[in-house]
């Protein structure tokens, strides 16, 4: 998969979780990229974001969540 398609896919996954009512609960980065923990009531999921474009996109979403 091209970087562009992979980043589109990762951004879509971020949007999907947020659209389904998940909130960003935790985020950390390491050599493998960014790991985002989403939380909805008792449910928790962890999403790995590898592409640079999606990591930028996620930061914008995180900012939105902290502002509203």
């Amino acid at each position, binding site marked *: 998969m091209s970087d562009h398609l992979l980043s589109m896919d990762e951004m879509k996954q971020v949007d999907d979780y947020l659209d389904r009512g998940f909130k960003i609960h*935790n*985020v950390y980065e390491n050599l493998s990229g960014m790991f985002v923990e989403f939380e909805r009531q008792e449910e928790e999921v962890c999403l790995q974001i590898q592409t640079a474009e999606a990591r*930028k996109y996620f930061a914008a979403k*995180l900012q939105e969540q*902290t502002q509203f």
Partner: protein
Amino acid sequence: MADLRIDLAGIKSPNPFWLASAPPTNSGYQVQRAFEAGWGGAVWKTLGEPILNVTSRFAAVSFNGQRVAGFNNIELITDRPLEVNLQEILETKKKFPSHAIIASLMVEPQQEKWHEIVKKVEAVGVDGLELNFGCPHGMAERGMGAASGQVPELVEKQTYWVKEVARTPVIVKLTPNITDITMTAEAAVRGGADAVSMINTINSLAGVDLDTWNTVPHVGGKGSHGGYCGPAVKPIALNMVAECARNTFVNVPISGIGGISNWQDAAEFMLMGATGVQVCTAAMHHGFSIVEDMIDGLTNYLDDKGIASVMDLVGQSVQRYSDWGDLDLNYKIVAEINNDVCINCNKCHIACEDTSHQCIDLYTESGRPMLKVREQDCVGCNLCSIVCPVDGAISMVERKSTIAPMTWNERQSLISNFAR
């Protein structure tokens, strides 16, 4: 017509173009001819205890047919007695009272030696002093030049000694052979410098002769490192000027030096914070008359922009120079190829395919070879437009980002504040 006069820490000159302390300012004959040609000022070749030089002294780096892309020298400071130089400075100043003559000075790091030479030089009417803490070769082996200029404490102390007796403005000339030039610039300011100038030459070896295996240049089969200057060093010098200009502790005027070859280079240095510029290599390559084009070009540029005085250029771009961490991660440009202008050399495709992000596709349309950028994969690196030999064939165009601006520093702050 725009006013080209400058005032650098109280040193006034009819235009911002000074000859740097170097072979072109070795004698009164040369400096007077330079003033007749139109140069606004001259920093006299460094005065100190007369030295001995070797032959040969210079070497140049040519690149793809461009002669003197870089220039290397192992010549030292003046080899003439101080009194001879002072007499010629006196005569030159009498003939050209409105032109700036600055004496470049270098002595051992001792208070009495600095006091002695400052008093003698100022007695003949120089407009200012430039302390040579930058010369990287020869003199540095004797504890002077760059050897002093690489130690902030020595820069501060020697500047202070000079200021104890100086009556004219003191410019401290800094070496680029240091990790962070703002450290020594700040030291100069702490010592009382009225201005700083940069850059002196960069440690270099021009080359090795593949037939003889001698260094270039060599002195009877032996070589030593020299000082590199000329067009190749301009980006290094411009960055150092800009770093000092945006440093709040370096709150003195800057005289910009390093690869300045035309009026455009001069304007760039002034926009990045230099109040005036010093030129050497371009004059050594083309002669003193190049200043005519510099004066005409700068005047026309200012007139076209409706700027009344060249001093109004100084520092205008400094606020646009920042840290990487303050750049917007979401700003987006992409390459756009104009196939009507493209000559199908395919250099952009090769460069992108081999060394960048593989986003320029080759295809044919009505039997004609064409190139197209896949925008979604283009990272806006500029490489294709850099290697393209045809003006207008590739443009870098802005694309509105769908996400709000955010810098790396803002992003890191956001994430670290959020992480549990």
